C-alpha cells in the first residue's frame, strides 16, 4: 500500500485526497465531487426510491440527457413512447430531487462526457463518477474519473461516497511524435492492440511522455475515453499549462482570481519524479500508423495497411476460435487486405470522437469531396454543433452528402433508434465494435474521424494520409 507520505503518482494523490475512511484490504470509502447521471441511471433512482432516501448532495449531482435522445426532429415530441418514457424519467428524477438538468432542449445539452469538461463541471483534482463506463474520459483533465453500476449510482446518490479498492498504477509513456494524419484515436487503438481489451484491468492508467503532452485537450479526452477499452476503469493525464488554458472561463469552473488559486493547487497534482508504478509500458509514437479494428473487440486492431489474421496461424485454440468467430461475424476472410474492405455507411460521433477538433479533422478530408456511402455526423454537444456551424463545417459535411444532426450518443449505442441494419458495415469513430453494438447484426470498424471521412469518400477502409496531401 503506497503511503500518503513519500513519492506519489498522480493517481495516489487523487486517491488519498478523497479517502474518507480507510477500510480493510485497500478498500476505501471515497468522496465524490461530481456525480453525473443520464437516462440510463433510472435504476439507481429506483433503488433510492425503494429506500425512501433523498439525494445526499443535489448540488453535486448533474443530470444530462444523452443516451436516448433523438438526433432529429427535436422540435417534435419523441415518437417512440418507450424512449420518451426513459427521457422523461430523467427529467422527473431531476425535478423531484432538485438536480441541475442539462436536458433535451437545453443549449448546453450533449454527451455527458463531452459536456462535463466543456462546462467546467469536470476539473483537475476532482473525483467524478457516472453510471457509464466512458467516464474514464474525464481523467484527461487530471480528475479521478470512472464508470459505476446502478447499485453504485444508488450508493453515491444516497451518501456522495463510494467504496472502492485501490487500483494498481500503470504508466504508458509515449515517446516521439505522431505523424501527420495520425491522432489520439490511433494511439488509443495501438495501445489496446498491444495490451489487450483486459490488459488494463485492475489498473488506473496514466498516459505520459512527449507524444501525450503534445496532444490537444480534445486528443487527451479521446485517449482517456478509450482507457476502458483496454480494461482500465480510469485513464489519466497530468494537468499542465494546456489544461489550464483550456479550462479558463468555462461556465462552472472557478472564475478570475479563484481560478488562479485553484490552478496553484492543480499544478501540485502531477506525480512526484521518483514515484513508482506497478506496471510500465513504452511506445514510440513515430511507429504508429492509422489504425482500424477488423473484429468484434477493440483489441482486434491493425494498421490500415495490414492484412487480416489467419486463425490457422494463431498461438492457441482460444485465440484461433476468437479470430474465426470475429471473421465470420464480420463476413471477412483470413489474409484479406484491410484496404479492400468496403463499407455501407459511416458514423462520426460519440464521446470518443465528436469534439470540435474531431469535426475539423473530418472536414479537412471531406472538403470539396463527395461521400459515396450514406452517413451520419452527430456532434458531441450542442455547443460543439454551434461552433462547427460558425466555422462552416456543417456545410462541408452536407455538401459531401452526409447528414448533420443533433447531439447525443446516437449510433454509438443505438438506444435512440439510430441504428445500422442487420449485416450493414460501418466505419465509425466510436469506441466499441462489439457484436450488435450498433444494432442487431451490425458490423463496426473503429477508427479516427479523418479515417472515417476517408472511408466515406472512397467507400472502403483506406489510409487517409494520401487524401490529406497538399491540404495543410
Amino acid at each position, binding site marked *: 500500500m503506497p503511503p500518503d507520505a513519500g513519492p506519489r503518482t498522480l493517481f495516489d494523490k487523487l486517491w488519498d485526497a478523497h479517502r474518507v475512511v480507510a477500510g480493510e484490504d485497500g478498500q476505501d470509502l471515497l468522496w465524490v465531487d461530481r456525480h453525473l447521471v443520464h437516462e440510463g441511471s433510472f435504476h439507481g433512482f429506483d433503488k433510492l426510491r425503494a429506500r425512501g432516501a433523498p439525494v445526499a448532495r443535489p448540488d453535486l449531482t448533474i443530470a444530462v440527457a444523452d443516451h436516448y435522445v433523438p438526433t432529429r426532429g427535436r422540435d417534435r415530441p419523441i415518437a417512440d413512447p418507450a*424512449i420518451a418514457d426513459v427521457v422523461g424519467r430523467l427529467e422527473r428524477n431531476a425535478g423531484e430531487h432538485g438536480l441541475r438538468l442539462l436536458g433535451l432542449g437545453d443549449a448546453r445539452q450533449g454527451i455527458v462526457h463531452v459536456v462535463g469538461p466543456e462546462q467546467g463541471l469536470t476539473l483537475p483534482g476532482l473525483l467524478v463518477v457516472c453510471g457509464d463506463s466512458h467516464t474514464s474520459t474525464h481523467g484527461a483533465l487530471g480528475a479521478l474519473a470512472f464508470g459505476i453500476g446502478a447499485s453504485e449510482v444508488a450508493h453515491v446518490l444516497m451518501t456522495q461516497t463510494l467504496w472502492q479498492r485501490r487500483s494498481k498504477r500503470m504508466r504508458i509513456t509515449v515517446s516521439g511524435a505522431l505523424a501527420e494524419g495520425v491522432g489520439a484515436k490511433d494511439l488509443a487503438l495501438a495501445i489496446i492492440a498491444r495490451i489487450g481489451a483486459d490488459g488494463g484491468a485492475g489498473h488506473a492508467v496514466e498516459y505520459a511522455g512527449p507524444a501525450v503532452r503534445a496532444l490537444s485537450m480534445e486528443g487527451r479526452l479521446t485517449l482517456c475515453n478509450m482507457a476502458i477499452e483496454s480494461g482500465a476503469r480510469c485513464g489519466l493525464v497530468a494537468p499542465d499549462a494546456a489544461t489550464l488554458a483550456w479550462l479558463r472561463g468555462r461556465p462552472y469552473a472557478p472564475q478570475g482570481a479563484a481560478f488562479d488559486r485553484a490552478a496553484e493547487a492543480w499544478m501540485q497534482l502531477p506525480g512526484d519524479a521518483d514515484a513508482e508504478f506497478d506496471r510500465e509500458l513504452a511506445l514510440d509514437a513515430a511507429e504508429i500508423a492509422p489504425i482500424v479494428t477488423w473484429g468484434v*473487440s477493440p483489441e482486434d486492431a491493425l494498421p490500415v495497411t495490414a492484412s487480416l489474421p489467419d486463425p490457422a496461424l494463431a498461438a492457441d485454440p482460444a485465440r484461433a476460435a476468437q479470430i474465426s468467430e470475429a471473421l465470420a461475424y464480420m463476413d471477412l476472410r483470413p489474409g484479406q487486405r484491410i484496404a479492400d474492405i468496403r463499407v455501407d455507411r459511416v458514423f462520426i460521433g460519440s464521446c470518443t470522437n465528436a469534439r470540435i477538433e474531431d469535426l475539423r479533422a473530418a472536414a479537412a478530408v471531406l472538403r470539396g469531396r463527395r461521400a459515396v456511402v450514406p452517413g451520419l455526423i452527430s456532434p458531441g454537444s450542442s455547443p460543439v454543433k454551434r461552433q462547427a456551424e460558425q466555422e462552416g463545417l456543417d456545410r462541408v459535411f452536407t455538401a459531401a452528402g452526409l447528414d448533420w444532426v443533433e447531439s447525443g450518443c446516437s449510433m454509438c449505442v443505438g438506444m435512440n433508434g439510430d441504428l445500422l441494419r442487420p449485416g450493414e458495415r460501418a466505419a465509425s469513430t466510436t469506441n466499441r465494435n462489439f457484436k*450488435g453494438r450498433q444494432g442487431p447484426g451490425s458490423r463496426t470498424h473503429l477508427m479516427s474521424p479523418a479515417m472515417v471521412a476517408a472511408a466515406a469518400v472512397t467507400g472502403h477502409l483506406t489510409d487517409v494520409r494520401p487524401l490529406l496531401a497538399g491540404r495543410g
Partner: protein
Amino acid sequence: MDKFDRLTAPACPLPVSNVDTDQLIPARFMKRTRAQGYGEQLLHDLRRDGQGTLRTDLALNDPARAGARILVARRNFGGGSSREAAAYALVDAGFRCVIAPSFGDIFAANAVNNGLVPARIGEAEAEDLLARLAEGPGELTVDLETCTIVAGNRSIPFTIAPTWRTRLLNGWDDIQLTLAHQREIAAFAAARAAAFPWSLPGLPD
C-alpha cells in the same frame, strides 16, 4: 442480498472470449425496469442465429443443461459498459457464479452487488473446465470460504478481492456499512469545501 458460501450445481460452458456486456444484455432491452426482469434476454443475440432461431451448437441452449447456476467462460468476461443489467440478466437466468480468467472491472463490481460471484482462475484451468463440461452436463462445486472450485477429483483455486468475498459470504450491502460512517462523511465534506472551494461547482444558473 443473498449469502453465498458453497454451491454445488450444474455448470454450463461458454467457450467464448470477450463476452462483453453488449452481448450479455443488448442495449435495446435496457429500458426494462428491474421488476420486469432480464433473464429471458441474457445473451439474447449470441443464443440465436441471424433468423432468430435458438442455436443448437451452444451449451447454453441445451435443454439437458437447463438449471445451470455456474457459467464457465474465456477471458475478459463482462468487459465493456457499466450496465448493471448484464449482472441482472445472469442472476435472473439463475446464475450465482461466473468462472473466467479475467473480468471487466465494472462488471465484476456489479456482479458482487447482485450476489453473483466473479471467480478468477488461470487460462489453462479454464480450458480444462471447458473441456470437461463440453463432454456433457456436469456439476461443479464453488466454495467461497476456501476459494476453490471442485470438478470431479480436481480442485482449482480461484481468486476474488477479499472484501468482495466477505460481503458475498455475509450477504452484506455496502450502504449499511457506509451509513455507519455518516459522521466522518459529514466532517470530510465540510473540511474539503473549506480547504478546496474550487471543488464545488460555480453557480452560473
